């Protein structure tokens, strides 16, 4: 952990701040949530690393998708994700968001979460232990360092195709597109 290195702070304050101030929009989408309370409380204490839960998507920059995603939940996830301000990182917990996990044949859970929203970090396991969550977070730090935690940029770049996938599943989503114009990428970067 390079949080105490002043030189790095002077060199790239934004990335450093993004790394060590991950405010999580936690949203119990599935079983994975059961390991979140231990992570944020006395035994593992994620607040040591600046990770803390916030109430609304507007305030956060880390979106934890904790487990399998049912259709109804996916809609809420998309809504929440779109309401978060950039830069934002998503971490998916457990095997189920990766490929459906043990619900691979369920009619009501989606199988590949990254078809609908971009995911920056995956934590495999059913369910991931708190230690695995921390490993996931350090991995996310590395990604941020290297500039590869770019899910939000990918989302704006490929918004049309994400939106198409979402609409294939839900028909009308009930809210207007996040990037309505023709060239969303430029707008997002501006």
């Amino acid at each position, binding site marked *: 952990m390079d949080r105490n290195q002043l030189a790095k702070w002077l060199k790239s304050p934004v990335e450093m701040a993004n790394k060590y101030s991950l405010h999580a929009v936690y*949203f119990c989408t599935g079983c994975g949530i059961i390991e979140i309370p231990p992570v944020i409380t006395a035994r593992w204490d994620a607040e040591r690393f600046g990770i803390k839960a916030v109430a609304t998507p507007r305030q956060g920059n880390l979106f934890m998708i904790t487990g399998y995603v049912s259709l109804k939940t996916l809609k*809420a996830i998309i809504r929440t994700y779109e309401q978060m*301000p950039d830069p934002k990182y998503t971490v998916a917990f457990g095997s189920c968001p990766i490929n459906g996990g043990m619900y691979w044949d369920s009619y009501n859970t989606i199988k590949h979460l990254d078809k609908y929203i971009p995911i920056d970090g995956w934590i495999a396991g059913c369910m991931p232990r708190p230690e695995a969550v921390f490993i996931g977070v350090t991995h996310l730090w590395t990604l941020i360092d290297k500039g590869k935690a770019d899910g939000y940029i990918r989302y704006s770049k490929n918004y049309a195709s994400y939106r198409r996938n979402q609409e294939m599943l839900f028909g009308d989503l009930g809210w*207007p597109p996040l990037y309505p114009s023709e060239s969303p990428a430029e707008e997002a970067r501006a």
Partner: protein
Amino acid sequence: MLPTTILIVAFGSAGFVYLAGRVHARVRDTLAVLSSLVLVGLIGLGYGAWREVVYVPDFLGLELVLRLNLLAWFFAITVAAVVSLSTIFSLSYMRRKESANFHYSATLAVEGAMLGTVFAGDLLSFFIFWEIMSWSAYLLISCNRGRALEAGLKYIIMSLVGSCAMLIGLLAMYSGLGVLSIPLVAEGMQAASPGFVLLVLLTFGLGFGIKSAMVPLHTWLPDAHSEAASPFSAVLSGVLIKMGIYGFVLLMYVVVGLKLLLGVGAGWLTFRHILCWLGAITVVVPTFIAVLQSDAKRLLAWSSIGQIGYIILGLSFGTSLAFAGAIFHALNHALCKSLLFLAVGAVEHNTGGVRDLNDLGGLAKRMPVTFACALLAGLGLIGIPLTSGFVPKWLIYRSLIEDGYPFLALAALIGTWGAILYVYKLLHNIFLGQLPEKHREVRRAPLSMRIPILLLGLGILVFGVVPGIPLRAVQDIGHTFGLAQLKVTLWGLGSEAGALNMLNICLAVVIAFAAAFLLLRLGAKGRAVDQEDSYAAGSAVPVGRYHYTVDFYGPLSRMISPYLRDRADEFYYWLAARGREIADLTRKVYTGYAGTYVLYIVSFLAALIFLQLVWHIW
């Protein structure tokens, strides 16, 4: 000759406007606006030209006098300004309304009567103009029919009670002193017995108390203010109830005089103390009743009563600071409350007559100017620094604290916190939050509505930053009444301990604002979103159902509403009912049979003869 000219212009234009309305609406509008503006100009020109004019040399042996001095001018310019702005506002508000002709002409007549009241140099003409004012206001209040009729009736009955009391005082004064000219009366009062002084104070005080809606004489006000047409509500609340305040000033500081006034009563139970405490109650109770209202104009009406409380508190406290605060607050309240009534009127006009606070919302984006000015006026009512409301309230508090009346100061301060509640409720429910579907088509207010609102808002800001302008006039008025001179500077009060300097505060706020703004600009750029893009726990926002308005202060209202009944109003209704019963009883005397009447006459005569024989009274 100036006061006479002003009055002639005022009443004359009232008549002409009505006639012009018969010809063409546009002629009427132009004439009304022009004459109201001319009146402002005339009064403005009269500054410094203090004089007395005898306009009826012999009325039953009395001289009727008009006089122009600083006090009269101060009130007159306020009246003229507010009425002229209200008239401009009416251009759109009253368009295509049946009663427009009457509205303009009666408004001008009310203005004339108010100007006459403040210019009156003797109590008889004061009373005459007072009555003209009451009656023409009555006609205007009940102009809307329906519930307005009832409201008007309530108003005029209470006004009549007040007028009767005043008439009694007037007659007593005439029989006791033989003069009615104000300076002569004041001289005569110095030699009068304390009982006589008390009689004068009570009778006139009742009349002025009813007009200025002091608790417990306030009950006409909420109905009348909410039922009148909005431009007239602004006049009613902004300046008409200030005539009661003018009356109090006249009564306490001119006719009776401060020295005599402080001597009325004994120990803690002095006239001044009682009036102070009435003022304090007037601050607290109506303020919290206002918090519970859900009708915009009714909320403002109750708030008017609360704000009048400050003025009465300051006036009756009687130190130079408190007096200055009271008179300044009268001006501040005239500005703020007229603005708020006009703003609510504009909203009402734009939304097709909606003034239910639960049915509006999100209009700030549609009517930005109206909102900004209403916000300013709301802050002025609260007394936030840099609005004209701050300095007068500060003066009153400071005077109360330094002279050792912390409980009165507490009442005044709590009233302020109550004011925050209702001001925010009003602004939030009308202008903030989500715009309901049915008001999507609302456009901004027409120019003729925005101009008066803007001007009033400007006034609030200017008098807030440069309180020295009105404060100088106010302290000069106080000085003529023998109050100690204040060290007024352009930016506040002079350099004694606990001084006030608005320039410092203003500069500090401006610099701090600039600093905060710079800090904001340091951050990444924002992205504007639509109102539908709002946090709803992961769901889409339900259209038209996503605005928190109903029962805005629920926990508080559940807690205090059992204690906040309008007991005075209930008492008057009880009194009216008893009165009707007694009247019923007397009616039974008249049976309609000739025989009964004969019986009455015979028994009356018999009684007379009996008395004559037994007691030899005469």
